[in-house]
């Protein structure tokens, strides 16, 4: 590792440096995972500011617990778990209110919903606004674990084995969650396809 630039170090090496007191190396982990963390949080919150706060909080927690990280899992599954837990806490506190009012937010405050709308594909592939709202609404009405499995697979592209680690469950259970989530979404969108 002598001639390596810090940004080339593996996660475990960066974590080890932090654990040995060189906290500044955590910045490289922030750089590497900030987009993923923000996007997970945004998938849960559908709000840019909330997503920023939650994902930054996840980094702060990871940093304050870095010495407890024992390397039994990879840093990224450990970190995803922190992000997801914060998102689920958030959902419990606010999810229902936020989600029930999503349509109103879109109508009354287009700027606020800008991020959600701009997620559509550019050339005519865009999911129509109503379909998108229906999909988001279905997503939010799912049991938390089902939604979590779906977001991690569909939006984050995590392999099922890693989702099982993040959620501390079995791969078979993740498959069931994923299947139920997809079936529910497909059903809710059938009239739009």
């Amino acid at each position: 590792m002598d001639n390596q630039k810090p940004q080339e170090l593996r996660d475990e090496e960066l974590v080890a440096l932090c654990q040995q007191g060189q906290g500044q190396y955590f910045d490289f982990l922030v750089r590497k995972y900030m987009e993923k963390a923000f996007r997970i949080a945004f998938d849960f919150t559908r709000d840019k500011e909330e997503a920023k706060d939650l994902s930054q909080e996840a980094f702060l927690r990871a940093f304050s617990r870095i010495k407890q990280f024992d390397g039994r899992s990879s840093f990224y599954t450990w970190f995803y778990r922190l992000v997801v837990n914060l998102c689920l806490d958030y959902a419990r506190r606010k999810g229902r209110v936020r989600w029930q009012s999503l349509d109103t937010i879109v109508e009354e405050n287009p700027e606020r919903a800008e991020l959600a709308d701009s997620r559509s594909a550019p050339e005519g592939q865009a999911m129509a606004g109503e379909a998108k709202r229906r999909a988001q609404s279905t997503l939010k009405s799912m049991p938390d674990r089902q939604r979590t499995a779906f977001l991690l697979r569909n939006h984050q592209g995590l392999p099922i084995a890693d989702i099982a680690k993040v959620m501390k469950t079995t791969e078979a259970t993740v498959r069931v969650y994923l299947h139920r989530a997809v079936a529910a979404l497909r059903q809710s969108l059938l009239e739009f396809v």
Partner: protein
Amino acid sequence: MERKQTLETACRDFEEDLVLYYYGDGSERERSRVEVHMRTCARCQRFLDDLRRLLPQMAQPESLPQSFWDGYYRETVAKITAQRQRSPWWRNLSTPMRAWALPVFATASVAVLAVGLLIGRGGWNPQAVRPRANIPQEILTDASQLEFFNSMDMIESLPALEALDGGKAEPFAGRNG
């Protein structure tokens, strides 16, 4: 639309495997079982087509400007730095360093002096003094200090996921948007 009433699903025995198939998961055996079945089953083919049409659209990531990510990074790092300065663990970590810090400091001083002399002569090459990612051996070997600070650390409860494992009521269950 007529289609609305039909709500056609895949064959019961294949639906879960089709979802996995769509994501490229599942074992080789499961995948070929799905492929063989789809050759003769239009329902399952349509199910897979629907997934291919719908699911990627849901995951379209928005491209945020680089300035957003730059700001995000700066803000996050500033928060972490502030936490590091507040936290007893990071602060205290410097305390046991004093024993080894003296010789290290002395060595560093000599190095700084030497670099100063080099600069004075116009012969300093910044590449040559690139900081190393290595840890001073003195810290590495002092595992007991780390243990001590570990034991001082507060143990945060939480895992929301674990709470859910315990079968708590789902906050969103039963709602239909």
